[in-house]
């Protein structure tokens, strides 16, 4: 998992920069996960390898997006209202994640 992290993190950072210049579409995009009412939606989300997935927090409560391996694979900071976080999934697999603030909030990204 650490190998993935080293490869993927610079890509995730680049993805976040792209977001800033409006290269990204809205909430309806197939690679966006909306966080609303303490839930990730859609889940599971299936994407192709190399897809940059973006989470968008629409709650007034902060949330995080933290991989279920304790945040080793990906880990967002606290996302306040309307904050976004992106991560690029380069390798096929099933990635479970949760909100480290509200641990009952879980989601899955399937990369294939």
């Amino acid at each position, binding site marked *: 998992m650490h190998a993935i992290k080293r490869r993927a993190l610079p890509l995730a950072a680049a993805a976040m920069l792209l977001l800033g210049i409006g290269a990204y579409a809205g909430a309806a995009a197939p690679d966006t996960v909306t966080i609303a009412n303490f839930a990730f939606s859609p889940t599971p989300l299936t994407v192709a390898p190399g897809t940059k997935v973006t989470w968008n927090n629409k709650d*007034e*409560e902060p949330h995080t997006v933290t991989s279920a391996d304790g945040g080793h694979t990906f880990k967002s900071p*606290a996302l306040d209202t309307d904050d976004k976080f992106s991560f690029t999934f380069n390798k096929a697999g099933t990635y479970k994640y949760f909100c480290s603030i509200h641990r*009952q909030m879980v989601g899955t990204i399937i990369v294939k």
Partner: protein
Amino acid sequence: MDTRDKESLVNTRRGLLKCMAWAGTGIVWSVVGGVPKGVPISMGLGGTALAATSAFTFVQISDSHIGFKADANPDPNATLQAALDKAVALKPAMMIHTGDVTHLSKPEQFDTADQIIKGAKLDTHFVPGEHDVIGDDGKMYFERFGGKGAAAGGWYSFDQGGVHFVALMNVIGFGPATGATLGKDQLEWLEKDLKGKSASTPIVVLAHIPLWSIYPQWGWVTADADQAFAHLKRFGSVTVLNGHIHQVVQKVEGKVTFQTAMSTAFPQPAAGTAPSPGPMKVPADKLKSVLGIREIAFAPAAAPKLTDQILG
């Protein structure tokens, strides 16, 4: 709710609880040797009279969420200050804060909270909330608010006023879970911590997330709390003070009284009454009626009294 409604409500226990849950009425807790009793001091029963007959009085505040800025409360600094003004007026021996000191665990939020709380000049003991440990597993929180002599995991205990306080930590988790966990290390520590204590020692347990199952769907539960109560069951008086749900919910089970606290920042909906437990908006002029503090008063060989008090 008008004044008349309030008067009729507090005449019955059910009315009182209803009022606490929905109008955010405060309760002063006084722990007088056994079973705590809730008394609403904002409704004519003065907190000072209670304190005068009690040997040891302390105040609980909770969920100050410094840094919160949404509509439910644009100025949590001011409402924290209002809570502290109420607390200071009760002349307590000390104060506890049951977590979510900050909203987003940011350094400036910790600094602001620290400054405001220090201004009250009360000896204060904290337990962290999940909002205090985001991103760094509580490093910044523990630097400022960590308990004296705390274990590596952040839990600690202390004795004051003849009461043994156990400050537990149930807000750090490294994977998905339904609700909070205390964990094996902390449970072992608790067993050792309680070992030499006489069963007649009143125990107060502090933790942010409720230590009983209120509403697991919203994470209002601590999964392994039963193991903690196995160590606590021999004691004659156990008072569990939690935060997290921004409203007063009470349960008495044998010699154990559980009670959650109001927030000083914003209310949350009652379990299951909204799509999510997010901040609940009330009209601005009603906000202080759903925020509050709690006084807990212990006197020798009598039941503890717990009284919540709204901010306005």
